[in-house]
């Protein structure tokens, strides 16, 4: 083969086989095109399975990849694959054991310390039992968080439910319980509801210094309760 290394002006020679086209398609050609079309149809099947899995993210992360492991002794979160939640129950997320037992709280960074946000975002999945009873009601979401921010700085935790912001929780170096109103129709519609806490400010600088391990601030979710709004 001539790679054209020493003669850049020459047309490179590529042909090592009979790579030619013709003007007329034979029977074999049509059969091959039909086979290609059949394959394309076949690929829609795994594609559909990937885009619309039988198990959703909450189930997968709880029972398939075990990122949120079942809390075996927890009196709450029973039923509905271990994520069932009955209105009015106070769920304590205990940070005294490694992540396995801490259950259902997605904290980033792989630290085995507790359900705190070494990263910038954390989530809780739960399934509302008797969802039909709460659909028309607004709810009160009580979140207990504990912050350990650097002196002089403050974290604002943006809380959203199923992607809709319901409020923020400011904290510095203390434990705070915030009561937020969840509008009617936001929870209990999906099989699993997702409550997300995002740290703000979460700009480039904050992310960088946290990621680099230059500061050891932490935000922990300690407990949560959802009640009907009085």
């Amino acid at each position, binding site marked *: 083969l001539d790679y054209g290394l020493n003669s850049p002006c020459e047309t490179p020679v590529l042909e090592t086989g009979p790579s030619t*086209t013709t003007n007329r398609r034979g029977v074999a050609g049509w059969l091959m095109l039909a086979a290609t079309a059949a394959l394309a149809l076949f690929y829609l099947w795994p594609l559909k399975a990937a885009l619309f*899995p039988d198990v959703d993210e909450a189930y997968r992360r709880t029972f398939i990849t075990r990122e949120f492991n079942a809390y075996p002794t927890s009196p709450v979160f029973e039923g509905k694959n271990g994520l069932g939640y009955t209105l009015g129950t106070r769920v304590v997320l205990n940070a005294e054991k490694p992540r*396995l037992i801490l259950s259902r709280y997605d904290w980033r960074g792989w630290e085995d310390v507790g359900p705190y946000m070494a990263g910038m975002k954390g989530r809780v999945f739960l399934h509302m039992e008797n969802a039909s009873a709460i659909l028309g009601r607004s709810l009160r979401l009580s979140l207990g968080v504990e912050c350990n921010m650097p002196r002089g700085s403050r974290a604002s935790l943006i809380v959203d439910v199923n992607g809709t912001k319901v409020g923020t929780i400011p904290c510095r170096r203390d434990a705070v319980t915030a009561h937020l109103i969840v509008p009617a129709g936001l929870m209990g519609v999906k099989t699993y509801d997702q409550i997300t806490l995002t740290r703000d400010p979460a700009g480039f600088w904050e992310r960088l210094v946290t990621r680099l391990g230059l500061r050891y601030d932490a935000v922990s979710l300690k407990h949560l309760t959802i009640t009907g709004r009085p």
Partner: protein
Amino acid sequence: MTVAVTQARERSDIAYVLGVYALSRVVVFLVLATALAINPEMGSDGTLAAMCRWDCIWYVELARDGYHPQAQLWASGSAANWAFFPALPMLLNAVHDIFGGDWRFVSVILMQALFLPTLLIFHAYAQEIAPSDDPSFARFATALAAAWPFSIYFSIPMSEAIFLPLSLAALLLARRDYWIAAGLVGAVLSGTRVVGILIAPALLTLAVQRFGWRALLTLRPGTERVILGLAMTGLGLGGFMLYLSHLTGDALGFLHIQVAWMREFKWPWMMLIDDLNPFVEAWDRVGLNLLLASSGVGAALLLVPLWRRRVVFLPEIVLTVLVMAVAATGGRFMSLPRILGVLFPLILGLAFVAETPTGRRRVLIASGVGSVLLMMILFLERTLGLWAELAM
């Protein structure tokens, strides 16, 4: 050249490859014997089984017991064997059905046997792309493949050992215009490991070079076999996805279960910040990660000779760059040498570095020394502790 001369040349080439193969096996087992002499403990469960470590155990158990119905392994309960693709376990299972015996023994012997056709295909490939004024290139490249620093991965029963011959065969067949056969091999390849499907863009690149976009997009007569071959490459992956969907409800279970190995998508710069950061990692871990990351730099450097010849090697470059992109976003540096070290274009890249007989001898010796060192690290895993991750 007469037929007789051609046949004599072919016989001589086969004898050469056989010699290289035999010598490489002698070296592997000599290094193994040396490692056993240094650390007899590692051979307590059988000398040959010492070669079946790390992912090999997963593949052997997968061949024997099939896929787990649910994640259950490790203290976290988060691991399942869905991360491992089915091509190698199916092959192991078939061979074990025929010969029986200890699973690990069968798997190790199978890999040693497979290395001979691997070298033969490599030689054929090197001949196919060798510069016309360099008759000794193919032999040098083949010897280099056997003495490649990461050649130990071709002997251990892990998917890397079949990724190499299958990726070579798929591109070789396509280069010789056997597109449907290339597609069939590509289908098996995509059922071998996550990056197996990346043979599809490499084949597509070759097809575009040969036929042009317009002919392929307009389905011009004569391109049907090419298009069918390309379409077939996804069969292995598609089948595995359907199986996982049926078993677990998650067609992408092979990706999602990677969290058990602490692998999640991460941008390369975040990997650098996380894994090379002395504020959060111990110094020896940072050093190890630096060494692991350097294999990526080495791979990029070996692409340079191929890039200079990109008119011919664009498909190989596409395959390598895409695999590197997957490795660079996998969340961890661990396994980087293993992922990159089985890419045959990098061996070809190294083969192009030296052009004189003396230079080639030097490259071969340096590569062989590197190969022996890495083998020793692999075999002395338990003695070396953390640093054994270099070979993992």
